[in-house]
């Protein structure tokens, strides 16, 4: 049906006399197995066809689309887009749709075990994750465990004659664990996501979740003040995703909503920080052959030893600067206008062992989890997050677990000093592969 939808849409668009048009069709087959403390509770499954048409008349642009129930539904989508586009004002910054589509070779993006779904295997896996926590620590139990699997086929074509298609699988596994000890309780979650399940180890996931929950028992706040801090990979990932990734997107830069505007070629972070965006990296969640307007994905350095060397572009923002798209057009669903976003972010490892960093802390926090990092402000660079799982370290010794304090600071001040260092171990977390990071000074709001 995916090609019937594409063909019919292209024919219709040709008849309406648009100057340019693009059709994007997605076929998404997904299955989710959901378990609670009682075991596997239900399975949710289905298939959806999503269509987006982008039509252009002069410099007037309209995106229209949604789910379709049958091939003929696209008639309404295209005719509606045609009616609307004529009434719109011109976008003076519009140049064109992509004139050449293409596809990169990306490995490990289709997991046959997900594509040819053996449901029983994944039901058993969720059941195992529900039961396993108590084996790791008798005080622990799983509150919920879920597996989400999908097989996605995409096809994009536009009026310049190009057609690209690909297929991809996605897997997301999550588990929440709670530990009850005496009158105290603590919870922790762990997750895995990627294009395949080759790196997924359920025992490792459960063990880490249980250890996190146990670590949080008898947590308390530290007093308000300035501390050294080690952000573990998932917290550093959250920081990049909330504050740095938006600032690297060309639309934000062009509209003056990025602190990195006008900083190309300048040192913006510690010389120990190198950041790469790579949509071709094998097997990660953001790995794919082309972006959401059919431009091949590629590897590009964004921060080189602390120096800003590039931004992320889709075709629209690239055209404004008369340059090539970096293959970073992103649409959460085909009927939404594309804009630049990350594919996979890789941060170079450092040379420090985590243990060594912790031993060298005089008065610091090792932060394993936060909540609310996404509430930070990428326009100002102001970081704000509440610590949900951490330990306080004094003179190199772990003193007690910490939660409920707020870490704050201007991320461009926090990460600028060369005293910021990274660990030699990295973790893959969805679209990110990052090490832990040491920051010499951060503001903490706690007691007093």
């Amino acid at each position, binding site marked *: 049906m995916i090609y019937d939808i594409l063909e019919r849409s292209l024919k219709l668009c040709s008849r309406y006399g648009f100057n340019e048009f693009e059709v994007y069709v997605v076929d998404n087959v997904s299955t989710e197995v959901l378990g609670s403390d009682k075991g596997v509770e239900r399975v949710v499954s289905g298939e959806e066809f999503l269509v987006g048409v982008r039509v252009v008349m002069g410099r007037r642009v309209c995106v229209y689309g949604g789910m379709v129930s049958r091939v003929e539904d696209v008639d309404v989508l295209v005719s509606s887009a045609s009616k609307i586009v004529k009434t719109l004002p011109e976008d003076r910054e519009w140049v064109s749709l992509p004139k050449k589509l293409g596809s990169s070779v990306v490995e490990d993006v289709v997991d046959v075990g997900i594509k040819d779904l053996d449901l029983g295997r994944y039901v058993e896996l969720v059941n195992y994750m529900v039961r396993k926590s108590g084996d790791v620590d008798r005080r622990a139990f799983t509150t919920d465990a879920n597996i989400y699997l999908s097989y996605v086929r995409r096809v994009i074509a536009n009026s310049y004659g190009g057609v690209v298609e690909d297929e991809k699988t996605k897997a997301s596994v999550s588990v929440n664990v709670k530990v009850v000890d005496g009158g105290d309780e603590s919870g922790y979650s762990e997750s895995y996501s990627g294009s395949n399940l080759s790196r997924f180890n359920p025992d490792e996931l459960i063990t880490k979740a249980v250890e996190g929950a146990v670590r949080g028992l008898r947590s308390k706040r530290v007093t308000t003040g300035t501390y050294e801090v080690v952000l573990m990979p998932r917290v550093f990932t959250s920081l990049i995703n909330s504050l740095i990734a938006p600032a690297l997107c060309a639309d934000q830069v062009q509209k003056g*909503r990025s602190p990195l505007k006008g900083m190309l070629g300048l040192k913006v972070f510690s010389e120990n920080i190198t950041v790469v965006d790579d949509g071709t990296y094998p097997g990660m969640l953001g790995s794919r052959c082309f972006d959401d307007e059919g431009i091949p994905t590629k590897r590009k350095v964004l921060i080189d030893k602390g120096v800003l060397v590039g931004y992320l572009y889709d075709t629209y923002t690239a055209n404004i600067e008369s340059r090539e798209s970096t293959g970073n057009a992103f649409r959460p669903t085909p009927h939404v206008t594309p804009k630049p976003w990350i594919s996979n972010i890789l941060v170079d490892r450092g040379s420090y062992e985590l243990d060594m960093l912790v031993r060298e802390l005089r008065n610091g926090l090792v932060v394993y989890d936060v909540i609310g990092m996404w509430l930070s402000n990428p326009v100002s660079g102001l970081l704000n997050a509440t610590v949900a799982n951490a330990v306080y370290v004094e003179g190199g010794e772990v003193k007690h677990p910490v939660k409920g304090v707020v870490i704050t600071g201007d991320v461009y001040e926090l990460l600028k000093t060369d005293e910021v260092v990274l660990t030699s171990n990295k973790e893959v977390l969805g679209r990110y592969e990052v090490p832990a990071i040491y920051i010499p000074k951060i503001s903490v709001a706690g007691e007093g």
Partner: protein
Amino acid sequence: MTTTYEELASLALEEALKRGADHVLVRVQEKWYESITYDCGVLKSYSVGRVTGLGVKVLVSGGVGYVYTTSLNREGVLRSVEKALSIARSLNTYTKVGYVSIKPVKDSFKVSVRVDPYDVDPEVKVGLVKEVNTSSMRKDGIKSVITRLAYEVDKRYVTSSDGVSVESEVTLVGFSHTAVAKYGMVSERVSNSKTFVGGYEFIVSHDWLTFTDEVDTLAIKVSQAKTPTPGTYVAVLDNEAVGLLVHEAFGHASEGDLVITGSSVLRGLVGGRVASELISIVDEGVVDGGYPVPYDDEGVSKGRTVVVNEGVLNEFLSSRYVGSRLGRGSTGNARVQDITYDSIVRQTNYYVMPRDLSVDELFEGVSYGIYVVGRGASGGEVDPSIGTYTFSIGPSYIIKNSEPTELVRGVVVSGNILETLMSVDAVAKDLKVITNVFGGCGKDGQTVRVGFGGPHIRVRKLVVGGL
């Protein structure tokens, strides 16, 4: 909803029962969302999206399968029924799921709309957004503005094997504006939006230039403001801040699915004190200003649920399944984002009940504190298992000698919800509940529209982050 959709739903229901289902629930949905965005004087996007499809949920000997399809034809529906039955049968060795029974109901609900936003000429809608956006861009100090107009029409039909047949149609329209101002090296953004339950008549009746002028002026002022000194403050929270706090930090913890899995700090506390006796909290399906949910997505009537009565925990929110595990009835809180999801327990319009003080009385006697203002807040996050919360609040004010005085930016508040609600020592009478067509509440990957709010309240102890 068209007859065809109802016929397909009946087909799914009958086929599933015929093939051995113990219980069947069918949902059909058709939803339109239109959004017009102007960014710095340029039409950034005019996009329209449609969601349509059917989902069938079957229970066979305690196993549950839910399958959805966007193929709204006989073959697509029958295929979905077969798959749902197959899944349910394969699961009944793992768990036994039960449902509380409900009374049969047949009803329909439709929001009154005088001017259908779909019928308004796109040129008119675009013209309004353009005028406001370009006007803002001309102001000194403003570096960037995003203005949006959006509407949504969500039609749902729910039918079940125990006699439910309920349809609803809800229309929302809204206008939002985000301004970024720069002063020296500091860039700050301020956002505000208004959403109405109804048609385009609400857009026509408002002065949007005045609305956006207030946002722009505040952005300019806040870019010159300081961040608050980190620490613990006496705080007065406005209606929106109270709504956010209670929805995120308490509301999620009162959702029964988290309670039964031990993931809520409120587990085992029914009948116990969880807040100051000044605090009563309700979840109500239809309330002025909120998002109307007369029936949930299992077809259960959503009335008013008193969650906290004068500080004492009274009830958890539940669905038919969660209600059965809690040993209670459903409170009508089973909700879904769209047909590609199965329902989970969600809030509807969750708010603090007003009492009798004026807002001014809450500031009296506060020698040094903070007036926490929700407008423009980015949102919040909570760990419901331990009650920890954090919120990014909009531009707020330091209180000195009973008066809100100095504007502050970058305010983040955090704490433990039970400690915070226990330390409430004053509640005003100015109840306000709002909803938002530009966003909603996220849980388990699903976003649903909700209403939230309350009156102003005063808290003796609130942790505030800053530089």
